[in-house]
């Protein structure tokens, strides 16, 4: 809202730049909103997964759920439904709504100066939505191993699920740094956490001014990377839930981290 005050002035200056830069700059607030909402959904998903099975063990309601003829696999898959389907759908709807509101505000602000049409001329809305949807779907698929790991911790740790989820990875990073002075594992982790778009989109050199490199509509989905995505799905993420205070480690296959470091040149 505040940034809308100087908008007509900035828009005039912008029209002097080349087309790509114009589009990137006009898109900026839309991208920022999308990323904020997606990050929120990601965080909600993370904390939901951490608590999904642990909470049931803590309040012992696991004894009620387990008294019904529902297999552990079904239970775990139903927990995955929230971060993998429900949250992304909500996020997508929220992104579309927010962008519509931004569009309305900027149009109202630009209307007196007669520049409102430039937004519509430069911004390919339908294409943006499709690419956002594609980005959401790929990032969800990309993060399945994360949710799988969190559910595993949730099914196993007695307390401090967050620390159990984070510390082992951190420890590996530190040991690698100390022992070999390299950061391959940290890179791998980073790519798993936030690297979905690198894999999903051909990253083109960033036009100056486009601070947020996500969901730019002038990127195209890269054809050779996309079909690999379903491989991530191939792992089974069945957590056998651990009863009561039994300390036994549940036999959960750890989804293998995709060994695909960026093979692209």
């Amino acid at each position, binding site marked *: 809202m505040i940034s809308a005050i100087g908008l007509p002035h900035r828009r005039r200056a912008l029209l002097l730049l080349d087309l790509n830069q114009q589009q990137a700059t006009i898109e900026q607030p839309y991208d920022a909103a999308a990323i904020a909402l997606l990050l929120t959904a990601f965080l909600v998903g993370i904390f939901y997964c951490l608590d999904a099975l642990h909470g049931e063990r803590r309040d012992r309601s696991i*004894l009620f759920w*387990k*008294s019904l003829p*529902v*297999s552990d696999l079904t239970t775990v898959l139903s927990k995955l439904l929230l971060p993998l389907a429900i949250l992304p759908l909500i996020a997508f709807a929220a992104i579309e709504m927010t962008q519509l509101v931004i569009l309305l505000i900027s149009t109202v602000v630009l209307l007196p100066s007669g520049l409102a049409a430039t937004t519509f001329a430069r911004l390919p809305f339908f294409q943006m939505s499709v690419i956002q949807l594609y980005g959401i779907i790929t990032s969800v698929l990309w993060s399945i191993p994360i949710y799988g790991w969190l559910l595993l911790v949730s099914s196993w740790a007695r307390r401090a699920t967050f620390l159990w989820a984070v510390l082992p990875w951190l420890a590996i990073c530190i040991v690698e740094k100390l022992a070999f002075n390299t950061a391959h594992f940290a890179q791998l982790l980073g790519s798993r956490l936030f690297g979905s778009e690198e894999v999903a989109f051909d990253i083109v050199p960033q036009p100056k001014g486009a601070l947020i490199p996500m969901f730019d509509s002038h990127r195209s989905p890269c054809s050779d990377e996309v079909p690999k995505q379903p491989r991530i799905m191939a792992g089974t993420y069945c957590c056998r839930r651990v009863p009561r205070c039994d*300390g*036994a480690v549940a036999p959960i296959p750890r989804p293998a981290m995709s060994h695909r470091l960026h093979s692209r040149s």
Partner: protein
Amino acid sequence: MACIEARGLRKTFGETIALDGIDLEVAEGRILGLIGPNGAGKTTALDAILGLTPYEGQLRVLGRDPWTDRDQLMRDVSFIADVAVLPRWLRVSQALDYVAGVHPRFDRAKAEGFLARTEIKLKSKVRQLSKGMVTQLHLALVMAIDAKLLILDEPTLGLDLLYRKQFYDSLLNDYFDRGRTIVVTTHQVEEIQDVLTDLMFIDRGRIVLACSMEEFETRYLEVMVNPEQLDAARALHPLHERPVFGRSVLLFDQIEREQLAALGEVRKPGIADLFVAMMSHKTAQPEGAKK
């Protein structure tokens, strides 16, 4: 076919032996009381039977391996655990919906019928209900399931006298028939004495007594003995002796009633009396070594 069949059932938690190779057989249509002190292994045994924990040894419940077949087994088995375990955020109507959705043998009308007799409203959340009401709700859900085996682990813990009485009454009158089997553990032994058909004492992971209630009633007798006859009574090797108002009550195993009648007033012991006798008898020997 036996409802529950265990051979050498064993479970350890690190150094602690929770179940020390027990053999167990519960026939269909029985009501078994599993009695033992805290930490005796009752809950571990029930967990194994319910497929909540892995174990060593052989175990078959209704012909299935509970650990690998839990979800299938739960079509025929219901259980209520020692404390109210219904999720607190759940509404009563949601609980009905969910169980109706996942359980093929759940009779929703029946459950609603049970609930209509209580103060529980369908719109309430579990967290708004009192402890007694949560147990009533759980019982209503469980009794509406046409299960072959019902397992109750301290079902009346923390409930007041009125609810406890109601609980067992409705269990017997509305639920139990010869086709069903019930296994119940409790510390309130007296209130299930008339309910049980079979009795089992468990201590330190071992079964120390397993008998039917008929057997229990014929085997064990208690005699109130005056001090002057005490030595004669002790000669018959009582299981246990306790002083009551200047006289002594002695508990005997397999001694003729006539023989005991000569010593004093003979009466039937309660399960609690036998339990105390056997447990203090058991702990008497290793006490010096341990403490």
